[in-house]
């Protein structure tokens, strides 16, 4: 389980960075067009197409779908074949999907803001809801996601939020505000970690100041930077990967954390998670169908199958992320302390992180400025 969580947010991870560098360097020839094209129009699809003539190629994070999925899909949907390619990060998936020519991929798993960007480039087939009856299993909230209201081109697979993961036995008062992290009380001095993955480094400061997590205003980012620089001397360190271990060992008391990464199910039961009152983000990993797919009927059938409670509940049980599927969540046995119990309505208070295009450079600079300051 931890392995899966590790690979999902790899931009934050250290370990295989060397390899990824090599991959990136070799992929240098693939160009991506930044010119905005209009979203694609829907194809005519046949509801009764012969799926045995279609093959499926998907790309997904390692361990993010059940290993036996291809075999089950072949058996249930009678498709000719199904192959699974893996990507470590959204960035690597985007490189595959935006390369010139046919990627050969029918269904891709990417985060919401990336689905939005793919759609803006006209690379996605609009979802044909009549081919996915299981869309009815989704929570009503899961159709109101700000990057894609009404699930026009993406179907949510998992979702979650960012908050404060803390040791309930070590803190004097449980954190309720981002300011508890940003200006730690004396008893928590140098016992706090923050994430440095750009947008998440800024998130606590932006929210504490009452700004949007998607702001591209220079003066708001500058105010956030001031807060983060003032916070720096009071931090144990920045940590995107092992903050959970630091809490378990007692090195730290509070950490900025993604909910799925906060080890609340640790045996001692003293690790808790709080979403600060100023609000937080809502991240969603989605399934999209590529415009270039020649197997669109099979692709819809696959998404429909994944939305069935027995497959979708696998994700909640095995990767410990919440799934936006009411029928599936009702089947999941929620362990004591597990964060799977966070209600969709609470999640929806979070603001979706959207792709900022050129303005994302501002966040890169912010995170370099904050971490480089000595």
């Amino acid at each position: 389980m931890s392995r899966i969580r590790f690979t999902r947010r790899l931009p934050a991870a250290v370990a295989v960075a060397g390899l990824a560098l090599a991959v990136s360097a070799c992929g240098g020839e693939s160009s991506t067009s930044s010119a905005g094209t209009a979203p694609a129009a829907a194809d005519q699809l046949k509801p009764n197409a012969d799926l045995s003539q279609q093959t499926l190629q998907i790309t997904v994070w390692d361990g993010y779908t059940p290993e036996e999925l291809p075999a089950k899909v072949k058996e249930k949907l009678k498709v000719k074949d199904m192959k699974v390619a893996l990507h470590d990060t959204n960035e690597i998936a985007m490189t595959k999907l935006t390369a010139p020519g046919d990627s050969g991929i029918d269904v891709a798993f990417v985060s919401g803001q990336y689905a939005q960007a793919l759609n803006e480039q006209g690379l996605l087939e609009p979802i044909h809801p009549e081919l996915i009856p299981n869309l009815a299993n989704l929570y009503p909230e899961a159709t109101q996601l700000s990057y894609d209201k009404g699930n026009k081109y993406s179907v949510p697979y998992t979702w979650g939020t960012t908050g404060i993961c803390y040791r309930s036995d070590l803190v004097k008062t449980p954190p309720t505000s981002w300011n508890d992290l940003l200006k730690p009380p004396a008893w928590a001095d140098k016992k706090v970690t923050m994430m440095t993955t750009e947008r998440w480094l800024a998130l606590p400061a932006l929210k504490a100041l009452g700004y949007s997590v998607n702001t591209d205003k220079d003066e708001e980012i500058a105010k956030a930077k001031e807060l983060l620089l003032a916070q720096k001397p009071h931090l144990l360190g920045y940590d995107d990967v092992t903050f959970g271990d630091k809490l378990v060992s007692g090195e730290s008391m509070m950490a900025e954390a993604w909910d799925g990464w906060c080890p609340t199910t640790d045996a001692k039961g003293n690790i808790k998670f709080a979403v600060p009152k100023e609000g937080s983000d809502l991240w969603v990993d989605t399934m999209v169908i590529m415009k270039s797919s020649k197997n669109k009927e099979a692709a819809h059938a696959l998404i429909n199958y994944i939305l069935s409670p027995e497959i979708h509940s696998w994700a909640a049980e095995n990767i410990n992320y919440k799934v936006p599927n009411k029928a599936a969540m009702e089947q999941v046995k929620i362990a004591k302390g597990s964060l799977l119990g966070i209600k969709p309505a609470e999640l929806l208070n979070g603001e979706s992180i959207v792709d900022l295009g050129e303005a994302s450079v501002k966040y890169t600079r912010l995170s370099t400025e904050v971490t480089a300051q000595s």
Partner: protein
Amino acid sequence: MKSEVKARPVSRSRGRRLGAFVFLSPGVVYLTVLLLVPLALVLSNTVFRRGRFGGVVYEFTVENFERLADPLYLGVVANSVKIAAITTLIALLIGYPTAYLIAQLPGKWKTVALVAIVLPFWTNFIIRVYAWIILLSGPGLINSVLGTKLELLYNQGTIVTGLLYSYLPLMVLPLYAAIERLDPQLREASANLGASAFTTFRKVTLPLTVPGVMTGCLFVFVPSFGNFVIPEILGGSKSIMVGNLIRDQFLKARDWPFGSTLALAIIAVLVLLLLVQAWVTRRA
């Protein structure tokens, strides 16, 4: 007869050329495929724009080089040079006496000492670095043995400690090779001529081992300078080095062109150092 005499050197040189071709080609292919081609790719990235989702847009620009001059990034490079230089200096101060002592040991113990120096390399680098956390952390071994609450981790000192620990063997080995090669008669001659032990060291031993010193320093400086794992694990990412900056450009910021430009800048610094080393070695 005449023709045979004439023919022989030709065929021998041809054979030599064939031999050279056969024996050189694996190395040449290796270097071309794994060094020159990737290097050319990285170089070509530096003059183009970043793609929105990573990758490169082929529009010519020099802005990557302009950004290199930004005080923010120069500061990171300067910080990396500082940390790597401190590490190298301490490694030299510890490594030289160590290598010197090992060279004076009787034969059998020399081998034992050298194996002991190399032994840490048998364990994975990340694990060895991570072990320092167990030693130094707040609830860690040192604090619990001493009963103290010292804050030993996550500062520039622990970065230097981690780098020093990781790369000290790379200082000791070339120094040992250089000191071991010294003819002991030179030192005897120096002593016979009335030089004190210190003068002998200063005027005989040290100058003759300068190439070893340079090699050792280079071996420690280069991996320290580009390191990004230790600043993250032991430094708590509170100060970043140029390696972190490059990694972030590729994995977080999706800015391959600027990442490539930074990589190129590092290569330039390292080539310069290699030239200095070659020059000093030739003079010595």
